[in-house]
């Protein structure tokens, strides 16, 4: 038993290590594809030949490709992703600064997506082919098909400009900007911990629209998957047995069947959390949200390869980690996988 666990653990670690190595290789390759001259990007067009050569050597571009790759690996291992040309600061520092904003947005989004997606998915499975099921299907289809940046723009027009229900672009009104002393970087948490409820309300009014739009795509995925997991359970004999014994339909579904799909649902939620990072790139651009996604697009448009490669690598690592966590959750909570 123990040895099989050790074997499985060893295999998982090896496969994660290979994948991480691959991530590094792929991002290195992307960084080297650049048609721009990295030296000219730093020094500008008017640099002297001597300065150019010195920088060329300093960047290690005179070394063979494999030496450059080994250096790149060493730098990654010591969390050095180079300096961002756009801000002049280390990429790692930049990412650490902008990441909490994205994490806050994604967390509110996943709360909305999960809070609505799971009940909708279960209801659709309970009342299969009914009006409820069709509505859930249409909502899901729209979530899959609608461009989030367009939904964001239309949401701003309707809820901000026309109705005035929510705050506009950005994380907070300028009026309150200096009332906040950063503690965690999560503005909702910071303001709540200090009891600044007025500021909290303002922050909330800013986050709710982008988070709802981001959460909508998560909702589509979560409700669709929950529905199909639940349908699989509802034809099982234990469900019939529970019904025959006189348990109510709601109780059978929510207490008995739901427990069996819980692990699968948690996995889906974790995966959609990772996909929110992707959605955040476009949503943040629309809402001028000072987070990771906007940082990525800004550096991208400026041709700042260090920052782009760093961001891409980070997203890859987050993906691999979340996948690993899902895998572990499965093994721990689902006895059938042992």
């Amino acid at each position, binding site marked *: 038993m123990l040895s099989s666990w050790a074997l499985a653990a060893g295999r998982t670690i090896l496969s994660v290590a290979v994948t991480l190595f*691959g991530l590094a290789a792929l991002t290195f390759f992307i960084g080297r594809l650049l048609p721009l001259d990295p030296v000219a990007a730093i020094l500008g067009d008017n640099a002297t030949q001597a300065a150019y050569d010195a920088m060329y050597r300093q960047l290690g571009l005179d070394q063979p490709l494999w030496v450059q790759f080994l250096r790149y690996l060493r730098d990654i291992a010591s969390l050095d992703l180079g300096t961002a040309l756009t801000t002049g600061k280390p990429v790692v520092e930049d990412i650490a600064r902008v990441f909490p904003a994205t994490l806050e947005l994604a967390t509110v989004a996943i709360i909305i997506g999960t809070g609505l997606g799971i009940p909708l998915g279960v209801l659709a499975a309970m009342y299969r082919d009914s009006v409820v099921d069709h509505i859930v299907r249409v909502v899901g289809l729209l979530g899959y098909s609608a461009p989030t940046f*367009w939904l964001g723009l239309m949401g701003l027009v309707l809820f901000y400009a026309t109705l005035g229900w929510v705050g506009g672009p950005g994380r907070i009104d300028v009026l309150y900007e200096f009332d906040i002393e950063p503690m965690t970087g999560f503005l909702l948490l910071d303001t709540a911990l200090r009891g600044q409820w007025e500021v909290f309300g303002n922050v909330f009014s800013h986050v709710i629209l982008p988070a709802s739009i981001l959460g909508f795509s998560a909702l589509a995925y979560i409700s669709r998957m929950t529905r199909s997991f639940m349908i699989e359970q509802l034809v099982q004999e234990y469900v019939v047995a529970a019904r025959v014994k006189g348990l109510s339909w709601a109780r059978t579904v929510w207490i008995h069947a739901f427990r069996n799909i819980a692990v699968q649902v948690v996995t889906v939620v974790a995966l959609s959390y990772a996909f929110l990072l992707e959605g955040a790139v476009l949503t943040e651009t629309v809402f001028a949200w000072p987070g990771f996604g906007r940082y990525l697009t800004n550096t991208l*448009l400026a041709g700042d390869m260090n920052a782009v490669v760093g961001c891409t690598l980070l997203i890859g690592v987050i993906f691999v980690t979340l996948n690993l966590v899902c895998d572990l959750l499965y093994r721990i909570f689902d006895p059938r996988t042992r």
Partner: protein
Amino acid sequence: MPSDIASRPGSIRAWLHAPVPASPMQARAQQLWLKLLRLVGNPPALLGLVILLVILVMAVFAPLIATHDIYAQDLTIRLQPPSAAHILGTDELGRDVFSRIVFGARITLYIAVLTALIVAPIGLLIGTTSGYLGGWVDIVLMRVVDIFLAFPSLVLALAFVAALGPGIQNAIIAISLAAWPPIARLARAETLSIRSSDYIAAVRLQGASSLRIILSHVVPMCLPSVVVRITLNMAAIILTAAGLGFLGLGAQPPSPEWGAMLSSGREFVLTSWWIAAIPGCAILLTSLAFNLFGDGLRDILDPRHG
């Protein structure tokens, strides 16, 4: 139905419903006919197909359908709401939005079709080879697939576009680079179930090479599910392409690409909402149509995964 056929023995309908097909061609035609009937019996899929056909017609006959020159600027009529002269209004340079949407269909379909043509053969070949040969080939190829799958497709496409430079061709390359791995995964899974079947063993005993078995006996079997998957992926591909256009990394202005149109309409969205709303509707409809049609196609071509 049988009485109907009996009454008109020479009709095409009777030929298509004959209980015993007389030729391989008739058998194939009957199969196709049955599939068509099932498609017609699936209203959402039919709706998807109709929308796609409308878009296709728009793209093919764009010069005939468009009412105005898509590049002609007229600042005296900029930002006009929908009217009789400009049924979807005009944009910030006074160009007719309807005509631009019509021509934009060409770009969207161009991206979608070209991506499918790049992604399908690569995914199929890598997936079937990996699944059929197994062993080290399988391990290495699937690791590569895993690495590509470790990035969300938009982020990977963004990174490639950053490296290759903006533009529609580069956007297609970037999207394809991000879109082939799921196809390879799928083709491999299909191949694994086909590999151990008796007819493959029979072909192998007759001395067929691995290449021949893969190309003429495994790939055709994988095709239906790959076609379904690509149709469904088309929705995501169109959203990614529009996203790249929106960020200014895909098709460049003054090209009437829908994402780029939406992006330029952004500045005026608070006063002239239609400039941004209409290209967005076009993107939504196209992506929705691919999703609906893909779902229906899955029920027809690939009943096992329904």
